[in-house]
């Protein structure tokens, strides 16, 4: 169940980076959760497409086995980590861009 382990680590690392490395505090903002809530159904839709047609196939030994919309439940963790990392990095580089363009 290595996918389960890595997916959990990815969420943990994304949260730690957001709070303590990039210091963007996305997880404390309502707008982040609103964005996540809107993207989630679209993730389920693309997951369903990719897995129901067997475009992507997962090894049964590397996942817990519970599935949502066709895809391993771990995909929710992967998706959350990527959405959080993307928005956290975006806010970080946006602030950096503002600071450097002011000088």
């Amino acid at each position, binding site marked *: 169940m*290595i996918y389960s382990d890595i997916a959990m680590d990815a969420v943990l690392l994304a949260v730690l980076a957001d709070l303590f490395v990039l210091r963007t505090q996305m997880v404390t903002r309502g707008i982040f959760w609103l964005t996540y809530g809107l993207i989630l159904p679209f993730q389920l839709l693309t997951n369903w497409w990719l897995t129901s047609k067997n475009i*992507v*196939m997962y090894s049964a030994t590397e996942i817990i086995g519970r599935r949502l919309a066709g895809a391993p439940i771990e995909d929710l963790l992967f998706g959350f980590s*990527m959405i959080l990392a993307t928005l956290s990095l*975006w806010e970080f580089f946006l602030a950096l861009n503002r600071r450097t363009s002011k000088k």
Partner: protein
Amino acid sequence: MAHFHYAVVLLFVAICAIGVNVGFRLRITHLWRVFLATDAAILLIYTAWDIWAVENHNWRFDSAQILGLRIFAGLPIEEILFFVIVPLMTVLTYLALSKLTKKYGKAQP
């Protein structure tokens, strides 16, 4: 046409992205440097994970349903595009919702 099964879902997301960018007048093209920096980091992390996962048989792709172009470390080109298009859509969704909540909701902190 089965070769387009993965690509078509990326096309769907890309069309949504262009629609949201134009519809909400987000003009993300003005901030291309910020997006490039963001996506470079995402690409680095998530393709590394993907390459490792494929090599260790965590998941695999049906070669009949992908374009068959493997430009980087044996990954299907769709996977690379996924890590560009999905973060782009994520940022656009965030910008559109930020704009909407500023317009109709309480003032942003």
